[in-house]
């Protein structure tokens, strides 16, 4: 469970070009939910995702995690409630690595290296033995039917194949929460539906899914449990579907 209390994120505070990307947002996301955050560009969706996903610290407010792994912090593994608002970067990153898997709008794959290396990259600094995460990476490539491209440089793949590499990379550390930022922006309808299908299978496995999108194919789909509407950094409405 992820809980946000009165979260605000501002950039360039005190300067003439001060920007408040997220304004007084409060939200609760339950374990296993499929949540879509919808809104026009500039509404603060991406910033909210970075705050939830332990990538950035809020300027004010509190964020709590419950039931999610928090390495290095006191309290037993999965039941305690942990506040992550003012954790040092080290701990934040450790939580992020163990808990969250990101799929970025532009896929954010490292050019010049192979598909397999890209998928393994998040596991490099964890201290896990190379052979272990390599075999996991190969299994993921198998799962998404791109094993034949394991040694291909990522620049040479098609759009759909690149997307699957990005998803495989997000899963390398067995995260409990998947976060996707505008994942269908560069895809046609066929690939977009396929993407939604893949994510719903993750939900079936017990993972929480969080998508930010202004694509109707995503927020009008029947798959999401909750659609959060944002405008100018604030939540303007929450729709729950059964």
């Amino acid at each position, binding site marked *: 469970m992820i809980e946000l209390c009165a979260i605000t994120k501002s*950039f360039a505070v005190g300067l003439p070009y001060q920007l408040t990307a997220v304004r007084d947002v409060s939200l609760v996301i339950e374990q296993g939910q499929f949540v879509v955050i919808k809104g026009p560009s500039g509404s603060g969706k991406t910033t909210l995702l970075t705050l939830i996903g332990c990538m950035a610290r809020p*300027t004010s407010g509190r964020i709590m995690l419950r039931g999610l792994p928090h390495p*290095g*912090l*006191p309290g037993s593994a999965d039941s305690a409630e942990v506040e992550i*608002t*003012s*954790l*040092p970067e080290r701990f934040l990153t450790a939580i992020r690595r163990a808990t969250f898997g990101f799929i970025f709008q532009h896929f954010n794959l490292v050019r010049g290296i192979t598909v397999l290396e890209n998928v393994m990259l998040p596991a490099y600094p964890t201290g896990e033995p190379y052979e272990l995460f390599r075999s996991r990476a190969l299994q993921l490539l198998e799962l998404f039917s791109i094993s034949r491209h394991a040694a291909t440089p990522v620049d040479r793949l098609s759009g759909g194949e690149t997307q699957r590499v990005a998803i495989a990379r997000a899963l390398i550390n067995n995260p409990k929460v998947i976060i996707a930022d505008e994942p269908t922006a560069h895809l046609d309808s066929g690939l977009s539906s396929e993407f939604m299908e893949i994510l719903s299978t993750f939900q079936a496995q017990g993972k929480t899914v969080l998508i930010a999108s202004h694509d109707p194919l995503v927020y009008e789909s029947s798959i999401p449990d909750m659609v959060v509407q944002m405008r100018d950094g604030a939540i303007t409405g929450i729709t729950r579907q059964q």
Partner: protein
Amino acid sequence: MIVQPAALALIVAALLTGFMVLYAGWYGVQILLHWDMRSGSELQLSLERRTYLISAIVNFALICQLLSLLLFIYTADALHSLFIGAMCAAGTLHVNGFGYPVLALKIVNFLLAGLWLIINYADTQGYDYPLIRVKYSLLLAMVPLVLLESFCLIAYFAGLQADVITSCCGSLFSLDRPGIGGDLAGLPDRSMAIAFYCNMAATAACGIIFLVKKRGGYLFAALSSMGFISAIAALVSFFCLYFYELPTHHCPFCILQSQYGYVGYLLYGCLLGGGVAGLGVGALMPLRGRGSMAAVIPVLQRQLMAAALVLYLIFTLVVSWPVIFSSFKLL
């Protein structure tokens, strides 16, 4: 002025270290003034980022200090042929008033940098940066010492003139000469050796009690520091005689030379390592109660204590070996 590649290398290292530590100290002041863990402001975020740079700088400074300490002693040794009366590093260092202060400052700065890194390591293990003020206050204390050392080093080399008559270790560390060299050598050697062994035994006992019962950290730090000093005193007055197989040769630097198998490096390395570890245990004692440190510090202290005990043990064994096994005997 001696313009020599080794001297230039040392001066370059001293200038670089001095500058970098000064830079780190400036940001240390910023951190001490504005740090607020709870705040998510951009200033706080930039200060947190800055702490990584400061750790990288102190790491660099520590390694530089250790290597330049070795290089400094070796250079002093290599330069001895340029000065009448100097037979080893002891004579070269005595040429002008800055030589021994540089050595002392290098050792002190090495110990302080090591201590800082131990505290830094403990701090980063905690999720609430509990030791930030302690760390940066220590850093600020280190800055003038590092700058002083750089200044003395440059002054030392600038003031070196070949052919200046100086004293060789034979007369520097001989019994009739007044001053600390003579005092060290003049200490009754048997008693010094006994005091050393007693100190080491007490340190070991205290360490074992700490490992088992988790008490006596301050005592351990005090004993290990006393051990550091008594080891050097015993080395100069008693043990080195066995390495040199001469009853009057009290020089602490000659054991670094190749003819004695470079055993000096092993001995001083163990002492320095043990000294830092022991100091670390003591320094961490008052910080145990702070926030997340309750889980972190005891584990770290045990590791440091084990390291200190092992290093002191190696030192004691190596130093006792010639006393027991060589054919040379003091009456």
